[in-house]
């Protein structure tokens, strides 16, 4: 293991090739930051010290402090960067040495920030963003340049006078995109102006105040509220209420059994035979979920309206108490997702979500931020999704099934999982003294698994047209993805041992929007290749097997 950076290498790099260091003032800041990171061990040791564990604790604290300061110094001496006419490069790390290279063409944002500590020393942190939509923060980050140098760098990288990076996107000039010209060809995929990194922004009030026409694509029909109970959002509400209740009980030291209603109902249930008690509880849960889900639906989607503005944006407005407005630029739209959870599907309902860059799917507060249509009749959902992408075919076209081997895999997988669970149940009965009915009721998993497999096999399918890649799979949540083919920015083809034996591939299209990757599971090898070749013409031709292959070596093919 190497112990230190080779000094010769460092000086050489510093002297030539334009490698630069961070501001030396960071020698004061880094150790403080590292110490802040080590605050918990330090505190633990110091508390231990006060509780009289003696001299040892003092040494520990000193040691941890020294470690922090040492790490801080190391960070300074192991970080360097350079800016060439074409690239920005950052080197860092001692044990894990990394060189990050960003072509300047790909730089979309340059953020200059400084916290209190930075400001005391007149420093700033420069973060170079390429528009990668994931949240990994360890991109090109230059933590600590002098404020002037940071400002210079900012200007140098963007080739223009600095603009505040927090300005929200202004409505597009009317010339940028006529609303009617939707099909893929008119949506620039790679020649976007590098103006603002924010494609979608929840606006505080109704965003439509300026000129330009607006077409309403969908509004909430109060009859749709009947789909509320089938969304299961009520189960979440029950969980939250239950959690709140148990905390209240814990904090207030009230014995719940002493409250009249609770006491009475527990007593009532205790007097009933077990199956009846279970039925009663289940019925109560169902009733409560239904009510809660319906209320949830109304709260979230009341006043829902989806509209298209002639300047090339989609607007979603919804909410009863909290009004949410979301604006999606259509040139950021990469496709749509038709989502049919099992319960909703059983009553012919569906939801529509947008696949757009800069929008995240299913995460914390942003959850549902990309909703284009709340649970609604399937026909309406298909219609709205088709209107949004300007082409109804991808949503209605019959999908190519993946063949008998893919179907069989659904059954073997469901069968394997049920069998394992049943064996676990059997083991608990035999070895852990669980009652015998645990095993007998586990047997239900076999027919359930069979049904699930049947449904999953029926869902599986894909289709490819000139502009759209369509994939559908899943049972508990069946999803149909419709993705623009020019939004595909790479292919991953993964095969497990079992898939290779039967010649199936999981073809994954990677993209910059939505879930970031959209899979076509268990598609026959030849069909996977056909889809990949057709959707992104020219990319795979050079890697086909019938072309002459040069002998294997370990040199780059430069």
């Amino acid at each position, binding site marked *: 293991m190497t112990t230190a950076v080779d000094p010769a290498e460092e000086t050489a790099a510093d002297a030539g090739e334009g490698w630069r260091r961070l501001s030396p003032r960071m020698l004061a800041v880094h150790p403080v930051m590292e110490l802040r990171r080590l605050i918990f061990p330090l505190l633990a040791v110091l508390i231990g010290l006060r509780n009289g564990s003696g001299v040892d604790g003092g040494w520990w604290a000193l040691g941890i402090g020294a470690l922090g300061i040492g790490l801080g110094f190391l960070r300074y001496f192991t970080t360097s960067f350079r800016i060439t006419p074409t690239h920005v490069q950052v080197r860092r790390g001692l044990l894990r040495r990394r060189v*990050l290279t960003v072509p300047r063409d790909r730089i979309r944002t340059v953020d200059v920030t400084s916290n209190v500590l930075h400001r005391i020393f007149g420093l700033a942190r420069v973060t170079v963003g390429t*528009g990668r*939509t994931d949240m990994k923060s360890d991109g090109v980050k230059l933590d600590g340049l002098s404020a002037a140098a940071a400002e210079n760098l900012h200007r140098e990288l963007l080739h223009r006078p600095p603009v505040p990076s927090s300005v929200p996107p202004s409505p597009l000039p009317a010339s940028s995109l006529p609303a009617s010209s939707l099909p893929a060809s008119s949506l620039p995929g790679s020649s976007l102006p590098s103006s603002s990194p924010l494609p979608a922004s929840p606006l505080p009030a109704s965003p439509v105040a300026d000129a330009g026409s607006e077409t309403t694509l969908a509004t909430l029909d109060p009859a749709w509220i009947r789909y509320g109970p089938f969304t299961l959002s009520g189960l979440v509400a029950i969980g939250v209420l239950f959690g709140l209740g148990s905390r209240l009980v814990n904090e207030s030291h009230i014995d719940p059994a002493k409250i009249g209603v609770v006491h009475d109902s527990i007593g009532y249930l205790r007097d009933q035979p077990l199956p009846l008690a279970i039925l009663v509880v289940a019925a109560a849960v169902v009733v409560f979920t239904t009510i809660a889900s319906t209320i949830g639906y109304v709260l979230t989607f009341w006043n829902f309206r989806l509209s298209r503005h002639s300047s090339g944006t989609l607007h979603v407005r919804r909410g009863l108490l909290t009004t949410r407005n979301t604006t999606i630029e259509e040139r950021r739209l990469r496709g749509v997702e038709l989502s049919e959870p099992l319960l909703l599907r059983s009553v012919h309902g569906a939801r529509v979500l947008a696949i757009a860059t800069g929008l995240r799917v299913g995460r914390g507060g942003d959850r549902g931020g990309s909703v284009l249509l709340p649970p609604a009749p399937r026909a309406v959902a298909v219609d709205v999704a088709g209107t949004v992408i300007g082409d109804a075919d991808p949503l209605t076209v019959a999908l190519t099934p993946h063949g008998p081997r893919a179907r069989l895999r659904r059954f073997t997988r469901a069968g394997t999982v049920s069998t394992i669970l049943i064996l676990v149940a059997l083991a608990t009965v035999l070895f852990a003294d669980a009652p015998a009915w645990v095993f007998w009721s586990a047997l239900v998993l076999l027919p359930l698994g069979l049904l699930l497999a049947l449904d999953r096999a029926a869902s599986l399918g894909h289709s490819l047209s000139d502009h759209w890649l369509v994939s559908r799979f899943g049972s508990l949540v069946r999803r149909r993805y419709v993705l623009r083919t020019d939004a595909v920015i790479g292919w991953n083809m993964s095969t497990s041992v079992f898939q290779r034996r039967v010649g199936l591939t999981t073809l994954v299209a990677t993209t910059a929007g939505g879930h970031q990757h959209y899979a076509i599971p268990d598609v026959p090898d030849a069909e996977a290749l056909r889809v990949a070749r057709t959707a992104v013409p020219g990319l795979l031709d050079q890697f086909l097997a019938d072309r002459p292959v040069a002998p*294997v070596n*370990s040199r780059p093919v430069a």
Partner: protein
Amino acid sequence: MRLRPPMNRVSPRALWYWAARAAVLWIVLLVPQVIWWFADGDGARTPHLIVGVVWLVLAAVHMAVMPQWRYRVHRWEATETAVYTQSGWLNQERRIAPISRVQTVDSERGPIEQLFKLTSVTVTTASAAGPIKIDGLAAKDADQLVADLTVRVGETTGDAT
């Protein structure tokens, strides 16, 4: 019509790198067993021995088979227009990204990699699901690859989303 594997193998030293990485994993898995051995001072030793033997057999098989298998699978290729890799062993994956969609080219040498003078190169695209990682390149090849790729990426324009 099939896709052929990428042209270049990784460095043979990667065999040792993968074995060392696996060794670290198996040693970590040994820790709870040791704790269990001492915490359970008076209990019967048979369960301990059974778990120990299972550990030994799995570790030996894994470390004997996995590196060889990986070495046969892991391949890479960078052309004027695309990066193409193949990796894995039981589960294998091929990843292809057009150069025009590449956003950053990173090289990385972790502690174990430095031991075997290896470098890994990661090519990222605008998709969080699309990074293409080439493990176990000889440092010289990695530097060459990074240099080639950065030039080619610089030649394409646009923001690659």
